[in-house]
C-alpha cells in the first residue's frame, strides 16, 4: 500500500531522529576508536620507520651486551664486578637523538648481567649523572648534620672501564622511489688501567623506504 504524504513525512521525521541518534552514537564510538592506544612494547607490530626508533636502540643494545658477555671482556678473574663509566657516544646521524636511549639500555643489561656496575659519581665532562655523591660530602662542615651519618673520605669507587662509541648514518639511493638508510652502532670498551680496548662491537641496522624526501 502506498503511504500517504503525512505518513511519509512522519516516517522521515522518525527516520531523521534515528539517523541523528545513530550518527551521534557512531561519532561517539568513533571518538573512542580514534583515542590513544597503548602499544605492547614487547611485541610492537607498528610499521618500521626510516628514522631510528626504540626497537632499533633495543636491538643494538642487546647485540652489544650479548657480544660483550660472550667475549669475556667483562668477566673479572676474581669474580668481582667491573666499574664502568660512560664516555662520549657521538650521534653522527641526521637525526636529533639522545644517545642515552642506547647507553641506558646497555647499562641496564650490563647491570643485570651481574658483571658490571656503573659509577654515577664521575663523568668525563665533569658533570656526573648524580651530583649528590660529591655534594653530600660538603656536609662534613655542617654542624646541622650528625657527622657519623655523613659519608667518609675515600669511599667512592673509581671506574676501571669506559664505554664510548658513535652512531653513524649513511643514506643511499636504491632506485628513484626507494632509498636505504644504514645505521652503524659502533661501541668500544676501554680498560682504563691499560688504555687498551677490551671489547669492540658494531651493529648495523638497515632500512629501506620511500625516497620521496629526506630520511629524517
Amino acid at each position, binding site marked *: 500500500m502506498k503511504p500517504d504524504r503525512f505518513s511519509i513525512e512522519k516516517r522521515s521525521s522518525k527516520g531523521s531522529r534515528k539517523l541523528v541518534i545513530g550518527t551521534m552514537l557512531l561519532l561517539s564510538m568513533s571518538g573512542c576508536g580514534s583515542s590513544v592506544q597503548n602499544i605492547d612494547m614487547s611485541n610492537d607490530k607498528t610499521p618500521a620507520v626510516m628514522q631510528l626508533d626504540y626497537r632499533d636502540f633495543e636491538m643494538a643494545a642487546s647485540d652489544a651486551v650479548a657480544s660483550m658477555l660472550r667475549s669475556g671482556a667483562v668477566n673479572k678473574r676474581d669474580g668481582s664486578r667491573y666499574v664502568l663509566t660512560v664516555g662520549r657516544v657521538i650521534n653522527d*646521524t641526521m637525526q636529533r637523538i639522545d644517545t642515552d636511549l642506547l647507553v641506558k639500555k646497555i647499562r641496564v643489561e650490563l647491570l643485570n648481567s651481574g658483571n658490571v656496575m656503573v659509577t654515577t659519581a664521575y663523568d668525563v665532562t665533569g658533570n656526573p649523572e648524580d651530583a649528590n655523591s660529591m655534594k653530600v660530602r660538603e656536609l662534613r662542615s655542617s654542624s646541622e648534620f650528625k657527622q657519623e651519618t655523613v659519608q667518609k673520605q675515600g669511599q667512592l669507587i673509581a671506574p676501571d672501564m669506559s664505554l664510548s662509541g658513535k652512531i653513524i648514518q649513511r643514506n643511499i639511493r636504491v632506485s*628513484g622511489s626507494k632509498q636505504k638508510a644504514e645505521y652503524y652502532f659502533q661501541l668500544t670498551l676501554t680498560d682504563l688501567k691499560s688504555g687498551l680496548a677490551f671489547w669492540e662491537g658494531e651493529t648495523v641496522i638497515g632500512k629501506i623506504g620511500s625516497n620521496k*624526501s629526506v630520511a629524517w
Partner: protein
Amino acid sequence: MKKRKSSSGNSCEYKSGFSGVEFCNFMFSGAFPRFFFRAVLALFCLHPLLGCSSVYQAERFEAFNASFAQGQYSTAAALELQHPPSLLGNLQAAAALRYAAQYERSNALFDECEVAIKASNERSFSSGVAGTLGSVLINDTVVEYRAAEYDGVMVNTYKALNFWKTGQPDLARVEFNRAMDRQRRARERFAEEIQKLKTEIAQKQASEINNARQQRRPSLDYARNVSNPEIDAIIRKTYSGLDEFNAYPDFTNPFTTYLAGLFFMSQKEYSKASTLLKEAYGMTASNGVVQSDLFWVEQALNGRPPGEHAVWVIYENGLGPVRGEYRIDLPLYMYSEKVYYSGIALPMLIFRERAASSLSVSSGTEGAEKTVFMASMDRVAQTEFRKRYPSIVTRSVISAMLKTYGQYEARQQLGVLGGVAAGLFQRATTSADLRVWSALPKEFQVARVGVPRNGRLLLSTSNGITLEIIVPSDRSSIVYVKQPTAAVVPVYEIIEL
C-alpha cells in the same frame, strides 16, 4: 572559491584559491574549452584579485628587502611574521632572526621550513601529470613556493651555525650531516626530475590527441613547441646572462662543504674533515685558506696536529640574487604549419652588489690579512636556476599554447567580446614567478689569522668601517661577519672552537 592551506609564501593561494592540480584535471578531462569559457566569464571577478595579489606579494617582498638591506633584521623578521605562516616567509624571517642574534627563534622557524620542504617534496614526488605541469593554465606564481635545493642546504647550514654558536655542537653536527645529505640527494633528484617532465609532456600529448579525436578537431602539438630551437635562440638573445657563470658541480654549495669540514676539524674528526675539505678545495682551487686548512687536517691525520690556535673570519658579503621578469613573443605551432606569436613571461636572476670588496683582519701578531673569495651564492643560485630553466620555459610555452587556443575558441564561440575577454585573461595571467629567498648573501669570503695575544681583533671594510672584536685568546674561534650593503655596519658573532 575554495581556500587552500599552503606552506608557501604565495598570497595568491589565499586570495584566489586556484590550485594548479585542479586546473590540470580540467584540462586533461577534455572539458578544457568549456572550462575556459567559464574562466573567461569569471575573468572580470578574478582579474582584480590576481592583480591585487601580485602587487601585494611584491610590496611584501620589497618591504622585507628594504629593512634587511639596511641591517634592520628584527624589523625585517617582524614584517614577515605578521603574515600567515608560509615557507618563504619563514625562510626570510629565520635568516633575519639569525642576524638579530635570536638563535632559538631562528632555529624554530628553520625547523618549520624543513618540515614544509619535506612535505612539498613528498607532494611533488607523489603527484602525477599535474605535478610539474600543474600551473600551466594560470602561471607558476599560483602554485606553492617550491624551495630550491640550495634553500634546503642553507636551512641546514644556518641551523648548524646557530647551534654551533650557542654551544650545541652535537646538534650542529646533525645539521651539517643533513646539509651534506641534501647535496647528495639533489644531484640524484635532478636527473629524475628531467625524466619526469619528459614523461609528463608525453602523457599530456597523448591525452590531447585522444581529446582532439573525440572532439573532432586537430590536436595541439606540445612536443614540437617545447623542443623548438627557435624558442631557445630567442631566450638566449633576450637573456644573455643565463650562462653567465661556470656552474658548480650540481647543487653543491662549496661554502657549506667547507664549513662542515671546518666543523669536523674542530671536533678533531680529521678523516671526515679531510674528505669535506678536499671536496671544498676542488671547488675553490685558488683559495689559500681552504688549502692551508686541508694541509692542517692532513698533518693531524699523520699524527702531527698543529699546536697553535687560529681565528677564522668568515664574511657574508652583500645580497644574493632576486628575480626579475622579461616578456618575449614566441612562435607557437598550433594546428597547422601556421605560426601564432604569443607572449610569455619568464624569470631572470638579478644579481645585487657586494657590500665591500673584502674585510681587512688585523690580529696584532702579524700584518693585516684580507678576506678572500671562497664561494658565490650567486653562482650556486645560477647553477640551479640554469638547470631548471628548460622546465620553466616548457611550462610557460604550454601555458601560452593553451591560452592562445582558448582565446581562439572564445572568439569562435563568443564573438569578438569573448576573444577580447580571453585576451585579457591571458594578459592578466602571464607573469613569471619572482619568489626567491632573498636574505641569502652574494658571496662568502674567508681569512685565517693567528689568535691575538690580547684577544683584540680589528676588522675594517674596504669602505672605511672598522670593528674591534674581542676573541678568546686561549683557543681557536670563528668570527662570522654579515654585511648586506656598504653603508650598513656589519654584525658579527663569535663561535668558540
